[in-house]
């Protein structure tokens, strides 16, 4: 494990609890992501992965514990302020604006930083996803699943985030498309954006990530480097089909 003690982490959750009414979804979750890393969080359906990302955005709010970003405590911050700090979310199920064009979707991503960098950023995004450029004036709802996922990622990148959170970007996509998306994530990380990836697709995610955490029933069960977790018998049994 390459724990960086002492210096501030980019994102840090410390003993965070979160609940939906009586349903306790996160229990004493502690994890951290350092600048430049790709970190993944794997877990089964209902483990609390989406909740963990949502808690960073304050919905639901952490009932106890602390969330820090760049050393600053953001536990109580308003949801719409989080993006302005430089955290972008690619939500589960993409949540693109399907009635709006691809271009408009991308422009929505610039809300948190203003329109100053729109043109160069669009060029960068189109280099990464040439398909989106071809479909610039098309309604986003008419894109294929993979293209919609690309659009969701591109929209998040338009806000120039320092930290990109992704919630199951491989969900419902063909293996070939999944591979493409994961290659893009590696590119994004190489270009200097820290990536925190939530996945059920443990095999892909752990190969991509430097480090990983395993979430079970709202608790962090295991953590380690990607390779350590890939080799871990418990992980192999539960998430990799037991080979």
């Amino acid at each position, binding site marked *: 494990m390459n724990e960086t003690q002492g210096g501030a982490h980019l994102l840090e959750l410390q003993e965070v609890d979160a609940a939906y009414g009586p349903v306790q979804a996160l229990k004493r979750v502690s994890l951290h992501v350092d600048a430049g890393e790709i970190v993944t969080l794997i877990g089964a359906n209902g483990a609390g992965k989406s909740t963990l990302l949502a808690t960073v*955005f304050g*919905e639901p709010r952490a009932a106890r514990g602390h969330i820090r970003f760049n050393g600053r405590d953001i536990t109580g911050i*308003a*949801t*719409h*302020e*989080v*993006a*302005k700090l430089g955290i*972008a*979310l690619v*939500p589960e199920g993409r*949540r*693109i*604006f*399907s*009635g*709006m*064009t691809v*271009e*408009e979707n991308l*422009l*929505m*991503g*610039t*809300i*948190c930083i203003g*329109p100053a960098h*729109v*043109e160069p950023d669009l060029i960068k995004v189109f280099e990464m996803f040439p398909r989106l450029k071809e479909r610039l*004036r098309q*309604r986003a*709802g008419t894109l294929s699943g993979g293209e919609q996922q690309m659009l969701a990622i591109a*929209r998040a990148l338009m*806000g120039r985030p320092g930290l990109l959170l992704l919630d199951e970007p491989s969900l419902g996509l063909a293996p070939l498309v999944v591979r493409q998306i994961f290659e893009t994530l590696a590119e994004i990380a190489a270009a200097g954006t820290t990536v925190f990836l939530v996945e059920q697709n443990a095999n892909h995610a752990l190969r991509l990530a430097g480090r990983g955490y395993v979430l079970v029933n709202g608790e962090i069960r295991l953590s380690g480097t990607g390779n350590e977790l890939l080799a871990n018998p418990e992980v192999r049994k539960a998430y990799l089909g037991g080979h």
Partner: protein
Amino acid sequence: MAKPASALTKSLLDALFSGVLALVVLGPISGLVLNGYQVRNEMQRPLLLAAAVMVGRFLFSLALATERGRSLLGALSARAQQGVTVAEASPPRSLRLATPLLLAAGLILPFFLSKYFLTVLILAMIYVLLGLGLNIVVGLAGLLDLGYVAFYAVGAYGLALGSQYLHLGFWTALPLAALLAAACGGLLGFPVLRMHGDYLAIVTLGFGEIIRLVLNNWLDFTGGPNGASAPPPTLFGLEFSRAAKYGGTPFHEYFHLEYNPNYKFIFIFLILFAVVSLMVLFVGRLKQMPMGRTWEALREDEIACRSLGINHVTVKLSAFMMGAMVGGVAGVFFATYQGFINPTSFSFFESALILAIVVLGGLGSTVGIVLAALVLTILPEMLRDFAEYRVLIFGVAMVLMMIWRPRGLIRIKRRSFDLEGLR
């Protein structure tokens, strides 16, 4: 027709069901007649009505079972299934030609109309304005406001009471009443906009009624049911009455013209026409500006919006206040045109009518709303004899719309936002 026999039984069952339903609904309404303190039983009437419903439903079901009936229905509803289309950013050629023509017509027309038609047209324009205002809230921002009439009332009473207590003239009251209405919108919106659809509708509905009840019952201040009088507009201090009432010179004396009561209405119409034209222009721009885009995004996916850094409360509030302001302006025009207002003009029926305009116009389409407002206000005037059936016809029209044209008579060709809009 696959199985004629089953189609027949199905139609019969449909008819029976409709008949029972009609009996249950209509029985108490039309079967029991209040006569003094006694209730007279006239059950043959709902029975007849139910029979008529049954026959109608039977024929309808039968028609639906045939190929032709289905294809007719399909043709009616097919286009409604498709989503919003995205048009190019520049307006279509036909529209660019029509605009100057319409403007010219609007400027020339009032001089050739009788007083009656002038007043009808002014009222129609007021509803156009109300429709455009409510459209910002309902059509663009997607917030169901059932108490829009409250802001209309605030504008109207703003002029009447402002003139009565503060001696404000039309031109001073116009912006002040608009701001007052916007402030009311903000006051109501701030706590309410955290709520979702249904709750918002109920709270706004209540607000509309509260305003009306306050106007009705605060006798000392508003005059209660007796109403309040409102001043007509002036042209650089010139008044449009026969003799000056507010210390100015009458318009006709200044220009050595014969007195004509039409002058006042022509003048009101021209100002109103200018305001409506500006409003149409403004709404058109708004849709392409970041604010309009944000409203649309918020309507589509609030959660995504918030994670992108949009404060949903302030964005909704902006739409709510802007709509309220337009309603206030419309109210000022209504008051000055009537010269006298009382709370009965601001009942829930007005809210429903304005909402009908927005829905019939196609939720978001400016042209559609202008047309719907004109049709819904001018047609009843033309068909005075059928005035009693107005509400019924509205109801039927709305139900039919929701079935066959859920996106409105005029389907929106949404312009795409361009990068220029961001500058």
